[in-house]
C-alpha cells in the first residue's frame, strides 16, 4: 500500500463508538506492518460496542456471548468468491429463500388445472407492480406457448377492408406503455356469502398490475377503415382452444385506452398471460382482456358470448341476472397484516395495502383498526395512476389487544367502496361477481390474523 492510499481526511464520518480518525490511522499503520489480526480485533470490538445501546428494548436482544453470531462469525458470502454473471441460462430467478412466495390454487375450487385459477401472493408483494411470474392466472381451456412468428391478428366486420397483421407489423406501429390493474370479475367471489378462505392471496389474489406495452386498438381499427359511427361494439376473440370472446364498447376503444398489447413489465407477455398478444381493457374485468388475441370484429350489437350470457353475469335478489356488468368498481384491501399472518410482537407496524378503481384514479384511502368505528387517512404512495393499483401505508402501534383492520377507498368520481352490508342490501349474496366490499382482518391477542366479516 502506498502512502497516498492511506485514508486521510476524506474518510466518512464514523458513527459513535466506531473508530476515530486516529484509530483508523493506527489500524492501517499496524496493518502495514503485517499485523492483520490487529485490524480484525479492532473492528470487531468497535462493532460490539456499537450494538450495545441499540439493542435496548428490542425484539432482537444481544445474546449472552456478547454479540449476534450472524455478525461475529463472518459468513461464507463475506469471505469467499461469489458467482459469475449470466448464470441461470441468462435469466435471473428470485432468491432461493423466496420460494414461499408463489401463485397458488385454492384447493377444491376447481377440479382441473386447465379450467382453473391461481392466485397472486398479495401478502408478499411490495409497491404496485406484480412480478410477471406471480401474476394471477385464469385459464378456461389451458394455456399455450405460441410461436409469435406464426401468430396473426385480424380485423373484420364493419370495416372497409378486413385486414391481417403479423406480430412484426403490430410491433412496428407506434406503441404506448401504461400501468394498469387487471382483476378477475370473480375476485373475492368466495366471500360473497361468508368467510371461506384464510388469506388475502385467496380472497383478493385475482388482481395483478403490470406495465403493458402495445398499440391502441383504435389505430388498428382505423387502418382497416372501421365504421366508428355505426359499429358501436367490438368483439375480441382468442386464438386458443377456448377462443374466448367478449364484447367491448366502441366508445371505450375510441378513447384510446384499449390496447393490443405484447409487452408486460419490460419483456414480452408471459405465456400464461396471453403471449404473444392480448387485449388490455383498463378498468374492465379480466375476462375481457382476451389472451392469445387473434381477431376483433366490428359490429352493431353485442354478442352475448358464453362469458357474457352464462358466466360473468351477476344474479340479483329478484332472480334477474345483470348482463354486460364489466367495470371493476373501487376496491381496496390491507395486505399486511392480513389473514394467516402472525404479528411478531407488540409495537410498531406499517399497515400496507392496495387500492384500485376501474373508473379512474384513487383519491383517498382510510384505514380503521377498530372494525370501522374510527378511521385514519392513509398515505398514498406514488405513482397514483388511473385504473392502476395504488399502494397505501399507515403507521400503527399495536398494543397487543384484538384489533379489526379495514381499508376503505374512494376514487376520483367520489364513489366510496361499500361495506358488505351495503353491497348485500342491493345485490344479495348470490351475485358471485364484482364483490368490492370492505375487507376485515381480525388481529387476535395471540398475534394471529383471521379473515372475518362483521354484521
Amino acid at each position, binding site marked *: 500500500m502506498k502512502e497516498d492510499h492511506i485514508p486521510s481526511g476524506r474518510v466518512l464520518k464514523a458513527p459513535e463508538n466506531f473508530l476515530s480518525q486516529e484509530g483508523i490511522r493506527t489500524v492501517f499503520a499496524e496493518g502495514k506492518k503485517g499485523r492483520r489480526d490487529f485490524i480484525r480485533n479492532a473492528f470487531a470490538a468497535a462493532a460490539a460496542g456499537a450494538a450495545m445501546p441499540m439493542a435496548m428494548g428490542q425484539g432482537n436482544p444481544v445474546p449472552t456471548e456478547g454479540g449476534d453470531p450472524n455478525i461475529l462469525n463472518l459468513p461464507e458470502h463475506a469471505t469467499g468468491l461469489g458467482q459469475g454473471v449470466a448464470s441461470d441460462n441468462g435469466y435471473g430467478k428470485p432468491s432461493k*429463500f423466496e*420460494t*414461499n*412466495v408463489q401463485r397458488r390454487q*385454492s384447493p377444491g375450487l376447481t*377440479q*382441473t388445472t386447465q*379450467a382453473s385459477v391461481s392466485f397472486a401472493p398479495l401478502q408478499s408483494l411490495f409497491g404496485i407492480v406484480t412480478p410477471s411470474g406471480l401474476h394471477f392466472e385464469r385459464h378456461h*381451456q*389451458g394455456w399455450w406457448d405460441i410461436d409469435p412468428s406464426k401468430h396473426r391478428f*385480424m380485423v*373484420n366486420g364493419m370495416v372497409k377492408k378486413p*385486414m*391481417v397483421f403479423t406480430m412484426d407489423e403490430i410491433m412496428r406501429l407506434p406503441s404506448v406503455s401504461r400501468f394498469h390493474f387487471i382483476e378477475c370479475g370473480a375476485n373475492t367471489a368466495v366471500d360473497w356469502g361468508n*368467510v371461506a378462505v*384464510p*388469506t388475502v*392471496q*385467496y380472497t383478493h389474489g385475482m388482481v395483478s398490475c403490470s406495465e403493458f406495452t402495445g398499440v391502441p386498438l383504435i389505430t*388498428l381499427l382505423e*387502418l382497416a377503415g372501421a365504421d366508428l359511427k355505426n359499429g358501436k361494439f367490438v368483439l375480441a*376473440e382468442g386464438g386458443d382452444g*377456448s*377462443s374466448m*370472446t367478449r364484447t367491448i364498447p366502441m366508445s371505450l376503444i375510441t378513447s384510446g385506452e384499449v390496447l393490443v398489447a405484447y409487452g408486460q413489465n419490460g419483456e414480452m407477455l408471459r405465456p400464461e398471460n396471453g403471449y404473444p398478444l392480448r387485449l388490455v381493457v383498463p378498468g*374492465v374485468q379480466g375476462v375481457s382482456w382476451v389472451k392469445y388475441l387473434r*381477431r376483433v370484429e366490428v*359490429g352493431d*350489437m353485442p354478442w352475448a*358470448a358464453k362469458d357474457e*350470457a*352464462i358466466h360473468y*353475469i351477476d344474479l340479483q335478489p329478484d*332472480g334477474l341476472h*345483470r*348482463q354486460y*356488468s*364489466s*367495470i371493476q368498481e373501487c376496491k381496496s384491501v390491507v395486505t399486511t397484516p392480513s389473514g*394467516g*399472518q*402472525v*404479528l*411478531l410482537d407488540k409495537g410498531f407496524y406499517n399497515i400496507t395495502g392496495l387500492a384500485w378503481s*376501474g373508473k379512474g384514479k384513487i383519491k383517498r384511502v*382510510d384505514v380503521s383498526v377498530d*372494525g*370501522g*368505528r374510527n*378511521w385514519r387517512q392513509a398515505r398514498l404512495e406514488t405513482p397514483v395512476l388511473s385504473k392502476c393499483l395504488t399502494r397505501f401505508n399507515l403507521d400503527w402501534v399495536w398494543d397487543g389487544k384484538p384489533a379489526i383492520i379495514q381499508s376503505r377507498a374512494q376514487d376520483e368520481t367520489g364513489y*366510496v*367502496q*361499500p361495506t358488505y352490508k351495503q353491497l348485500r342490501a*342491493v345485490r344479495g349474496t348470490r351475485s358471485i361477481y364484482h364483490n368490492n366490499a370492505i375487507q376485515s382482518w*381480525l388481529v387476535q391477542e395471540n398475534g*394471529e390474523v*383471521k379473515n*372475518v366479516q*362483521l*354484521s
Partner: protein
Amino acid sequence: MSSFRKVILTTALLAMAGMAMAQSEKYPGLGRVATPKEVAKWDIDVRPDFKGLPAGSGSVAKGQDVWEGKCAHCHGIFGESNEVFSPLVGGTTAEDIKTGRVANLTRQDFPGRTTLMKVATVSTLWDYINRAMPWTNPKTLSTEEVYAVTAFLLNLGGIVPDDFTLSDKNIAEVQKRMPNRNGMTTAHAMWPGKEFGGASRPDTANTICMKDCMPEPKLASVLPEFARNAHGNLAEQNRLVGQQHGADTTRPEGKNTTTAPPASAVPAPKADNSEAKAAVALLNKYSCTACHGVDKKVVGPGFNEIAKKHPGKTDYLAGKIKAGGAGVWGPVPMPPQSLPEADAKAIAAWIAKGASK
C-alpha cells in the same frame, strides 16, 4: 362485360386505390387485406340475431349419439354432471318456457344454477359448442354435430321435443322458448359505455365518516377452525422475513402462535424425479390431466389409484390408454387416445411403477 359495368368497376378500383393510399400515408407498408378464405376460417361467431350462423341442421337423436361419444364423460349422460364442470341441464320448468323467467332463480334455497337456467340466448349455446367443445378437441365438431348437440341439450331441458331437428330455419322459433330469455338486465352502472342506457349511478353510496361511525362491531362470520389449514401450512405461504410471518397452521392455535420458522430455514428442495417430470409433461401434452388427477379422482380415477390396482402392468396400461374403455372404474367411458406408442408406453411405465410425483 358492358362498358357501363367497366366504368363502375374502374371507379371502384380507383376508390380502393385511394383508400389504400390514404392508409399508407400514415403507416405505409403495415398490414394487408384479409382474403375471403381467411375471414371465413376465423369469423365463426354467432350473434343473438343469428348473424354468422351457418346453414344446416341436426336432430336430437343424432345429438344423443354425439353426446355419448364426445361430451358425456365430462358433462354426464344427461348433462347433469357436477363433478368437473357445473351441470348444464336441470332447474327449469314448462312454466319457465312460457314466461321466459326461470322461477328457481328467485329462490334463495335452490342449490345450483345450471346453464339452461341462466342462458337467455340459444345462439350462445351454438356459438360456444362450435368454438370451444369438446374441451380437449375444440373446433372439431361438424356443423351438423353442433346443431345436433345443441338440439339434444335443448331436448333435455324440455325446450324441444324428442323428434326435433334444429336448423338455421327454425332456431329463431326455439329462441322464443328459452326458459330464461327474459332473465337478463342491463339496468346497472357497470358497463363502460352508454350503449345499453343502464343506470348512471352506482348501486351503493357509502360515505366518508371518520369518527364514531358505528356501534361496537360484531363478528358475523369467522373462518371456521377446520379451514385454518385447508389451504396448506400458511407459514410456508409467507416470506421468511417481514413485519409478519405466516401462522404455522399444522399446529393448533396457541396463546402465542408466533411459530414462524427461523429465517435461515430454506424450504427443502423437492427430490429431483426426472422420470416423473417427463411423465407429467406427457400427461399435460395429451390432456390426460383434464380427466385424471395425479393423486385424485377427477372424471376418471387418479393415477395413484390406477397404480395401486395395476402395479407393474405396463403393457396392459399402455393398451388401455390407446383403446379407452369403460367398466373398470365405473360407467363413464374413456375415449380412445391417439398418441405415439412410445409416449403411451412411457406414461404406462410411470403408472406401473407407482405414479410418483
